[in-house]
């Protein structure tokens, strides 16, 4: 709906300004591309016929629509950027773009936008690019249904898939990003929606944003990225219905929250991550109706967090439900379902009659000595944990869910 609206708006914009003059130009691989672009009038449509176009640093400074017919290939030949755009109302659609330069010096990208507005980047397939789509100081961007894939082996050999710096009012939807450093990177980006993207197997973070306020992230899947999703120094974020899956590693999390305030994490699904959510220095975040399943640690809540609320979440089959580095607890944990809860419900109000302690003894030990994890589930460790449950000595006694649910929430 939103995408269609965007296209409509930009179409109206184009029509109103140059509609009388606009014409269609057809290009084939032998044509001089830069010269054709320079000759084109505002609002012209350039149709690229199938074939391979060797291009470098093609500059667009006027509203143009570039359409690829049957996915023509724009090949950067391993040098620099392919397209450089500083304009409004530019549409790039239906291209295969590949082989950018591999330099950290100029951040080579398949398409690089500066100071642009109302641009649409749609249905492109990017492969073997350093940065995929790179935007700075732009707004009202529509980035949809692109497939962006890199095959680097080491982190410094590749840039980000979709990179936005100082942008606002944009929509990133339905893209597939893999093999980059960060799948989607947002810095100083505001009022932007990231929706329905599939971000997997990136070296560092699937989604990485810093100082990016008032954004929402909805129905994305972040799978098997180096360290999951990192959210830093940001306020007023909505994270909803995302899937965080199989982010494995020594410092891998489904979601890393660092210095985040006044945000909502709702209806997300954390599955098989080493750490479901790791948070420090964060406050006033509401975690509601999230499903934590088969994570190593569902939550690592550092003592620097306060006034967060964990309400009505499911904790199922996690190795450890929770761990913390301190004992002072200023967060509210209530009415969650914990599958490890062994209490009873005599008054049958679906709320357990005895509180649940989500931090168990052995998670405290493993926190101090990581290699001790190898003894987990041994008879001896089970005994230790039982004893601690009866006579808590080491685990923080304020960290409790006073009203644990007896049955799991249906969050499907």
């Amino acid at each position: 709906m939103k995408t269609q609206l965007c296209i409509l708006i930009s179409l109206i914009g184009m029509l109103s300004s140059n509609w009388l003059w606009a014409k269609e130009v057809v290009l084939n691989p032998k044509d001089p591309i830069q010269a054709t672009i320079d000759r084109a009038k505002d609002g012209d449509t350039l149709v690229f016929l199938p074939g391979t176009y060797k291009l470098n640093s093609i500059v667009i400074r006027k509203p143009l629509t570039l359409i690829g017919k049957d996915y023509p290939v724009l090949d950067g030949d391993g040098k620099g950027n392919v397209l450089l755009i500083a304009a409004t109302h530019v549409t790039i659609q239906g291209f295969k773009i590949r082989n950018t330069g591999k330099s950290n010096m100029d951040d080579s990208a398949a398409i690089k936008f500066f100071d642009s507005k109302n641009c649409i980047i749609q249905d492109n397939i990017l492969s073997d690019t350093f940065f995929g789509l790179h935007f700075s100081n732009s707004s009202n961007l529509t980035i949809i249904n692109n497939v962006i894939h890199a095959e680097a082996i080491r982190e410094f050999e590749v840039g980000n898939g979709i990179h936005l710096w100082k942008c606002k009012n944009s929509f990133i939807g339905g893209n597939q990003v893999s093999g980059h450093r960060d799948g989607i990177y947002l810095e100083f980006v505001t009022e932007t929606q990231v929706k329905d993207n599939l971000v997997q197997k990136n070296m560092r973070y699937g989604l990485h944003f810093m100082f990016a306020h008032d954004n929402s992230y909805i129905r994305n899947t972040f799978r098997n990225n180096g360290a999951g999703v990192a959210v830093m120094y940001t306020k007023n974020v909505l994270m909803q219905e995302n899937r965080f899956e199989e982010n494995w590693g020594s410092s891998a999390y489904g979601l890393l929250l660092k210095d985040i305030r006044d945000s909502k994490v709702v209806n997300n699904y954390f599955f098989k991550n080493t750490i479901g959510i790791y948070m420090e220095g964060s406050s006033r975040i509401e975690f509601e109706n999230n499903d934590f399943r088969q994570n190593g640690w569902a939550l690592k809540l550092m003592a620097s967090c306060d006034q967060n609320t964990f309400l009505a979440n499911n904790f199922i089959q996690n190795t450890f439900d929770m761990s913390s580095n301190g004992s002072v607890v200023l967060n509210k944990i209530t009415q969650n379902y914990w599958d490890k809860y062994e209490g009873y419900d005599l008054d049958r109000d679906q709320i357990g009659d005895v509180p649940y302690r989500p931090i168990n003894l052995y998670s405290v030990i493993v926190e101090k000595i990581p290699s001790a994890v190898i003894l987990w589930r041994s008879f001896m460790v089970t005994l230790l944990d039982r004893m601690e449950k009866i006579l808590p000595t080491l685990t923080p006694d304020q960290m409790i869910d006073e009203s644990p649910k007896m049955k799991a929430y249906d969050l499907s």
Partner: protein
Amino acid sequence: MLKLLKYALYDILKSRFALIYTFFLFLIAVSVYQISDDLGKVSLSLMNILIMIVPLIAAVFATTHFYNNLEFIELMLAQPVKRIQVFLSQLFAVILMLSLSILIGFGLPMLVWGADSGLLILLGVGVVLSAVFAGFAFLASVMTRDKAKAIGVSLALWIYFSLVYDGLVLYLIYSFADYPLEKPTLALVLLNPVDLGRILMLMQLDISALMGYTGAFFRQFFSSNTGWLIASSALLIWIVFPNWIALKVFGKRDF
């Protein structure tokens, strides 16, 4: 050999113990399936029980069986058959019986209510641990001439491998927490069959947490088939080795 095994097996399968043990495991599995909402929880609960009970039963039963059958073993030895065949037929009969009890007791409920890879591996671990502890029991039995002493030794081995050993390892890890201990820890764990079985299950149930450990060696071990191969072959050695020694002793023993 097969004839001997056939008769030994026939005898053991008809014993009341085999029935009770199978029924007991079946009852446990059924009740676990009843109270757990998903297969992951089922395999967790069953694993906790299996890791404890199966080695214990295997150790005690195999020792008792050996001594109860001593006269029969003697009778066999007076017949024109080789000692090794007499020994192996008894051993295989015990292992087969213990394994069948697990496969039926735990397996039937799985057939009814479904199983995942974790549960199937659990069955395998149960069979292997039965074999390992039957081996320990036979070794204890051929080394001593006193049933009570042999049961004592078997029980001691069970307590050692199920409880004391892990305590020692934890103590070690705790004392040397400042040193890089990943390889020694892993090596120590390979020296305990119960731990090996447990780790095969951990790799099913807690792989996400295992991958959180910083050591590259750990990660490599657990993320690839290498870990599987190493753990499985270590377990195989644990089956073969005690039984092999027991066989040697049996071959030289006077009856």
